[in-house]
């Protein structure tokens, strides 16, 4: 055994550097709170306070432009809205729009994702190209579609004309105007559904398909019993996001139809805008907005419970 080398000086014992001086009253939780407080203050200032302020206004007859004090009117604003036939009409228009647009986007988005997921070459490029509409501002999208859909000057009718079809009144025909909104929204937001669905499809374990192949399962069987059940929860999340977005549609209506012909494409959000900024009935508009938030929260709760059950089942 070799004798220990006495020339090597023993290492100094490891000593932790002195801890930063901390105030005795500032515990870990306090410090955490201190770090979180700026974000919390911003959230309170930008989200919670306006919400509470709108809630307060919703019980008054306040008008933002009139220099008169707000008078407490209790639930009058809420009752006016719930009893208004104009609001019922806009609710139906909004419902038709949401179901039509989100339904079409789901079918198309999932189909495109399914096709892309099966293709290996050029998949990245195709995905990027498909995502382009989603990256554009809705106002820009609305403006160029307005030009494209114009009956007299638009490229769509010009194209249809060259194919021998007649002129279509996309934005001024009562039956077609809402469909046009659905088409434009679908053009822009189908990629969102596609993206989520693609993520779900990519995550399906390959061995399940291999096992199904060994069992000689048909293409439909594989889709019905492997692909769809595994992608469905993710797809439902995408549908939830899109439905909430579609429910508060404003920009496309404002740019493309101004709610017309007449009020046939006036959605709830567009109607709130008119109440708030044409008549400046701020109290009434606040109640209208609060009711819309409540409706979205209730529907989202039902939806999330269904999702939970799906996950547990």
């Amino acid at each position, binding site marked *: 055994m070799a004798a220990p080398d006495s020339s090597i000086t023993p290492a100094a014992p490891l000593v932790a550097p002195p801890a930063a001086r901390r105030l005795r009253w500032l515990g870990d939780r306090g410090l955490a709170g201190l770090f979180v407080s700026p974000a919390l203050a911003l959230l309170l200032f930008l989200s919670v306070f306006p919400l509470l302020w709108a809630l307060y206004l919703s019980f008054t007859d306040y008008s933002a432009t*009139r220099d008169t*004090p707000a008078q407490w009117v209790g639930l009058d604003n809420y009752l006016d809205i719930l009893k208004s036939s104009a609001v019922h009409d806009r609710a139906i228009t909004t419902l038709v729009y949401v179901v039509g647009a989100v339904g079409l986007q789901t079918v198309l988005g999932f189909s495109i994702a399914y096709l892309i997921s099966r293709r290996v070459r050029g998949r990245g490029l195709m995905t990027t190209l498909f995502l382009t509409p989603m990256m554009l501002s809705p106002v820009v999208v609305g403006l160029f579609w307005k030009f494209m859909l114009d009956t007299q000057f638009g490229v769509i009718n010009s194209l249809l004309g060259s194919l021998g079809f007649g002129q279509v009144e996309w934005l001024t025909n009562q039956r077609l105007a809402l469909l046009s909104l659905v088409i434009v929204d679908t053009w822009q937001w189908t990629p969102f559904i596609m993206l989520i669905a693609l993520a779900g499809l990519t995550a399906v374990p390959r061995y399940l398909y291999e096992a199904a192949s060994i069992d000689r399962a048909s293409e439909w069987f594989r889709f019905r019993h492997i692909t769809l059940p595994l992608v469905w929860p993710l797809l439902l999340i995408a549908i939830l996001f899109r439905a909430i977005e579609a429910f508060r549609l404003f920009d496309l209506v404002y740019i493309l139809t101004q709610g017309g*012909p*007449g009020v046939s494409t006036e959605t709830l959000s567009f109607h709130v805008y008119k109440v708030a900024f044409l008549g*400046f009935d701020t109290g009434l508009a606040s109640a209208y907005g609060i009711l819309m938030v409540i409706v979205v929260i209730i529907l989202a709760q039902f939806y999330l419970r269904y999702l939970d059950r799906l996950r547990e089942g």
Partner: protein
Amino acid sequence: MHPGTKRWRRKAATAATLAALAAAVAACGSDDDSGGDAAAGGGEAAPGAVPALSDKPIELSFLWFEWPPAQALEDFANEHYTKERPNVTVKVNTVPNPNWHDAIFTQFAARKTDFDIPILDSQHIGEAVTNGNILDLTDFVNENIDTDAYDPYLLAAYGQYPQAETGQRDPDAKMYGLPLLGDTWTMVWRKDLMGDEPPATWDDMIAAAQKCQDENPGMSGLAFHQANGSDAAAVTYNTVNGVYGGELWTAADKQIEGVINNEAGQKAMDVLVNQMKPLAPKGSGNWFIDEVNAAIGQGKVCVGFNWIAAIGGLLDPEQSQLGKTPEAIEKKLGFAALPGQDADVVPLGGMGMHVSKYAPSDDQAEALNFIKWFEQPEVQKMWAAAGGVPARTDALESPEFLEANPWNKVYAESVPRLRDMWNVPEYAKLIDIENTNVNAALNGAKDPEQALNDIAAEQQKVLDASGGGLE
């Protein structure tokens, strides 16, 4: 620490936060209560004389909507006004037409404006005055403006509140603005296809448009405003209503029901929907100023109706397919005052200048000085030569104006025939009701008679409620 104590502390902290927020809400609410002295509306009064002007650099800002006169005003003011006030730069900010009312009144709602001179549509005056958003210019007008130099109705329409009877001015009423730009509709017709003489009556005009459409395949007879936004479809109906002897309301007792939808009103709606609309191009149900100009410039229509201040581009060869020079285009297009029928009225367009109550005092003084400068006879003539439509009678009759554009004589002829809408505080709601219903009738979404009756009932409800309500 006991977990129960922790929970209690958390609850207490949450309660304290909510209490603080509630206090903040209450504090904000109490701000409203302090606005009591302004509750009566009417705005603060501007001094009779222009106050001392600042020598510091000032940007005098306007807010208008995006159309050719806005740029013309900015160029004109920076070329001429700055000779008198070199430290001043004039900036005319613009927004899209449908945002015009919102852009101005949302800033009024914030009690802080980034404009000194809001350019209001004549019908917006009531809302701005009632809310106390603009200065009372009565003393200023009395001391600085030669009111006899104007057609009384032009002064009344662009500045007076409460509203004047059509064609008149109440010299005792308060003034809140002065004219910036006069305007009305002109009829533009294809001289090369329909002859040099304009149709004499409205019925003749429809017949001539029908004939022209029949004789020229691919062309439509008429182009006019039908859109849902701004006041487009409503002005069209109001025009036809006036031509057939109808009235929009009786101002004295604020009566609309039974007035707008009387026999003359129903006749006007029938003519508009069943005689004029079939002559308009397919899909023109959302047309406004630009689309009508485009249809005329592209040779798609025989007769078009548009605001005079917006048709400058019609003679521009770069925007027209009717000729390669303005002279060549002018040989094909004629401009005339609207034909009458049972009555002889035309729509009043144009806007007035007002002074924001919320502008800094130096800017308010500069705004008053600008208005005083602008209303001088020689400046009005220069404005006419620069493409503007002045309001002073001497400027309207001057060669500078009459020879500046072929349509200027149309305006000069139309001044005694002008009729405005309501300028009450509920204007925005009234116009929306009329716009949506007329647009619905024009696009087949509503029976025309039903649309007019709905207009009457809904507008009356708004006036009776004097404000709130869902329409």
